[in-house]
C-alpha cells in the first residue's frame, strides 16, 4: 500500500531503530541499523553520516538505497526506496541534525569526538507499508495515545498560560504558575526553568515542577548536555526516543574505549531531570539579543512532544523570557504604609553558617547550601543582621554593593534571590527571605545564627 511520507511522522522520531540497505558498484549488498532517519519534506529524507564507512562508500558508487522505518505505536513497517541526491555540511538541515547529535555526544562525554560529518539527503522514490509484516492486531494491543491532541485544547491552554504570565506579581509566582499551567492544562508534568548566570557561564534551576525540591539549584554548564547546548546555540532541541539515542551514544563511547581512545572522552553528564526520561525538549529563553535562561520539559513517553507542542512551547518560552527580563529590573516600590515589623520570636535552635572565602560557598551545619553571588548575598544579609541588627534589605542596596560582584547591567538579582530563598527553604527553613514589597525584603530568623569564615583546601 502506497503512503505519503508526511503520514509517517511518528516513524521519524527515532524510537525504533531503522534499517538501511545499500549496494556497492560490484554488487555486494550491505545492511545496517540506523538510529535515526530525518524527514526533510514530503519527497525527501536525510540520513546522518557520523562515520566514513561501507554505507558511505556504497552511496558514492551507487545512489540507490532502501530504508525500513517502524511506527513506534503500531509497529507497522514501511519500506522507502531512496536515491541519493546530495550531502550537506552546512545550512538549516545540517544544523538541526548536528545539534541533536551534539547534545547526545555532550551527554555521553563525547563532545567533539562523536559529531555529524554530513547530512545525506535522499529522494524518496517509493514509500509502501510492508504488507503482512504484522499479524492482525487485537484492538487492545495498540496502545492509545497518551493525550488527545488538538489545537483547540492547546490554544485554550496557551491563553491561560499567557494570562498567568501577564498577571504575575513577582518572578517566583510567575514561574510557579506558568509551570503549574503547563502541567495542569497541557500535560507537561516535568518542567524546569534555569536562568543564565553570566558570571559563571552556568545555568541554574530556579523553578521546577514534578521533580521535588532537590532540583532547585541544579546547575548545567553552558554547552553541556541538552540544556547547555540549547542555551549555547540559542536553539530549541528536541530529543525523542532518548533511551535509544543514549544507548547509541554509549555504544560509540564503548568502541572508543575498546580502541584505546578513552583519553578523548569526558565523563557522562547525568540528565538534569528524570533519570529515565524518554523525551526532552529544551527551549532557550531569549529576550532581544540576550539569553536569559532555558525552559526544559521532559517526559517518560518517548512520543510526548509533537510539532504543535514545539510551536506553542516556543510562544510560552518567549513570554517567560520577556517577563523574566522585565522582572529583573524591578526596584523598590514606594511604601504604602510603613508597617512595624513584629518582634521576632525568641530563637531556639542554633544554626552554624560557614562562608568559604575562596570559592564563595556557604555551608550550614556542615551541609552545602549555596554558592557564588547568592552565597555572597546571604553572607552579607546574615553579617549585617549580626553586626548592625538590620532586618530589612532592598534590592537597590544589594545592587550598589560592589563586594557582591553583581554585573552592572542585567544582573539577574531577582533570580538569584529566588534561588537563595528556595535553597534556604529546603536546607534551613529557620532562615527566610520574606518579600515586604517590591524591591524590599525582610530577613526572618527562627533560630540563633553562628557565623564563621574559612578558606577551603
Amino acid at each position, binding site marked *: 500500500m502506497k503512503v505519503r511520507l508526511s503520514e509517517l511522522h511518528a516513524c521519524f522520531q527515532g524510537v*525504533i*531503530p531503522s*534499517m*538501511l*540497505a*545499500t*549496494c*556497492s*558498484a560490484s*554488487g*555486494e*549488498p*550491505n*545492511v*545496517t*541499523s540506523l*538510529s535515526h532517519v530525518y524527514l526533510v519534506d514530503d519527497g525527501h529524507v536525510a540520513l546522518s553520516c*557520523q*562515520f566514513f*564507512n*561501507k*554505507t558511505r562508500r556504497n552511496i558514492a558508487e*551507487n545512489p*540507490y*538505497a*532502501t*530504508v*525500513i522505518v517502524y511506527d513506534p505505536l503500531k*509497529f507497522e*513497517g514501511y*519500506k522507502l*526506496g531512496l536515491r541519493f541526491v546530495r550531502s550537506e555540511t552546512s545550512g538549516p538541515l545540517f544544523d538541526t541534525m548536528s545539534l541533536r547529535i551534539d547534545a547526545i555526544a555532550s551527554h555521553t562525554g563525547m563532545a567533539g569526538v*562523536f559529531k555529524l560529518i554530513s547530512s545525506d539527503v535522499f529522494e524518496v522514490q517509493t514509500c509502501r507499508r*510492508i*504488507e*503482512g*509484516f*504484522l*499479524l492482525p*492486531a487485537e484492538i487492545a*494491543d495498540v*496502545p492509545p495515545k497518551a493525550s488527545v491532541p488538538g489545537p483547540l485544547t492547546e490554544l485554550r491552554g496557551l491563553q491561560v498560560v499567557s494570562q498567568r504570565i501577564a498577571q504575575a506579581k513577582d518572578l517566583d509566582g510567575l514561574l510557579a504558575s506558568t509551570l503549574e499551567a503547563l502541567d495542569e492544562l497541557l500535560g507537561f508534568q516535568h518542567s524546569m526553568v534555569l536562568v543564565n548566570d553570566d558570571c559563571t557561564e552556568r545555568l541554574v534551576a530556579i523553578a521546577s515542577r514534578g521533580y521535588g525540591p532537590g532540583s532547585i539549584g541544579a546547575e548545567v554548564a553552558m554547552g553541556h548536555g541538552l540544556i547547555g547546548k540549547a542555551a549555547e546555540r540559542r536553539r530549541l532541541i528536541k530529543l525523542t526516543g532518548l*533511551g*535509544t539515542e543514549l*544507548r*547509541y551514544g*554509549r*555504544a*560509540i*563511547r*564503548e*568502541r*572508543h574505549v*575498546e*580502541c584505546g*581512545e578513552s583519553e578523548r572522552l569526558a565523563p557522562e553528564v547525568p540528565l538534569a531531570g528524570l533519570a529515565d526520561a*524518554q523525551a526532552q525538549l529544551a527551549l532557550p529563553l531569549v529576550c532581544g539579543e540576550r539569553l536569559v535562561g532555558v525552559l526544559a520539559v521532559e517526559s517518560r513517553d*518517548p512520543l510526548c512532544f509533537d510539532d504543535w507542542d514545539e510551536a506553542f512551547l516556543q510562544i510560552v518560552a518567549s513570554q517567560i523570557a520577556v517577563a523574566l527580563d522585565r522582572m529583573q529590573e524591578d526596584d523598590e516600590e514606594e511604601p504604602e504604609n510603613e508597617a512595624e515589623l513584629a518582634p521576632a520570636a525568641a530563637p531556639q535552635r542554633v544554626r552554624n553558617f560557614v562562608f568559604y572565602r575562596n570559592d564563595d560557598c556557604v555551608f550550614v551545619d556542615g551541609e552545602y547550601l549555596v554558592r557564588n553571588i547568592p552565597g555572597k548575598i546571604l553572607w552579607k544579609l546574615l553579617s549585617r543582621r549580626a553586626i548592625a541588627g538590620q532586618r530589612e534589605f532592598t534590592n537597590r542596596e544589594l545592587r550598589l554593593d560592589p563586594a557582591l560582584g553583581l554585573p552592572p547591567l542585567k544582573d539577574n538579582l531577582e533570580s538569584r534571590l529566588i534561588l537563595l530563598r528556595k535553597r534556604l527553604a529546603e536546607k534551613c527553613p529557620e532562615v527566610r527571605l520574606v518579600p515586604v514589597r517590591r524591591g524590599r525584603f525582610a530577613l526572618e530568623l527562627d533560630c540563633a545564627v553562628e557565623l564563621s569564615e574559612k578558606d577551603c583546601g
Partner: protein
Amino acid sequence: MPAISEELARFLQSGISVLTGTRDAHNVPDATRGIGVRVEVGGDEATVFLPQATSETAQANLRDNGQIAVCFSRAMDHRSMQVKGELVELRPADERDRTFMERYREELAEEWGFVGLPPTVTYRMNTWPAVAVRFRVTAVFVQTPGPGAGAPLAAQAGS
C-alpha cells in the same frame, strides 16, 4: 578456522535483530527483517529465515544473484556484526525451522522488552509461512557504531 567462531555464533543466535540485505540485477538494494539465524557446518554456513509475506523481493534477488548481507544488532548496547555470503540453498522452511523461529521470536521479545517494546508487540510479527535461506559465509565485519565500524572481524584487536 571457521568463518563464525563459537562465541560469535552464540551472539548471532541470541535473539537479537536480524536484518537482511540483498540486491537485484541492477544493484538496487532491498532490506528485509529476518526471523532468526542458525549457524551451520561448524561456522562456515548459516541459514536465515525470512517470512514469505515480506520477502518476495529478497527471494527474487537471491535467485538472481545469490548475494546476501545479514546485520545482527543487539538493541541493549548496539553491539552489531555483519555477515556477508553467497546463496547455497533457498527452500520453504519446515516444522523444525518453525520451532526454531518461534523460539527466536520469544528471545527477541525478551530482548526488546528491556528497551521498552512490549512483548505483545513483538509477538505480532508475522513469521509463518517462511523460507530458509542457506548461505556460505564469505566475510564478517564489526558493525558496532563508533571507530572501527565496518572493519573486517579479523582486523579487530582482541576479537
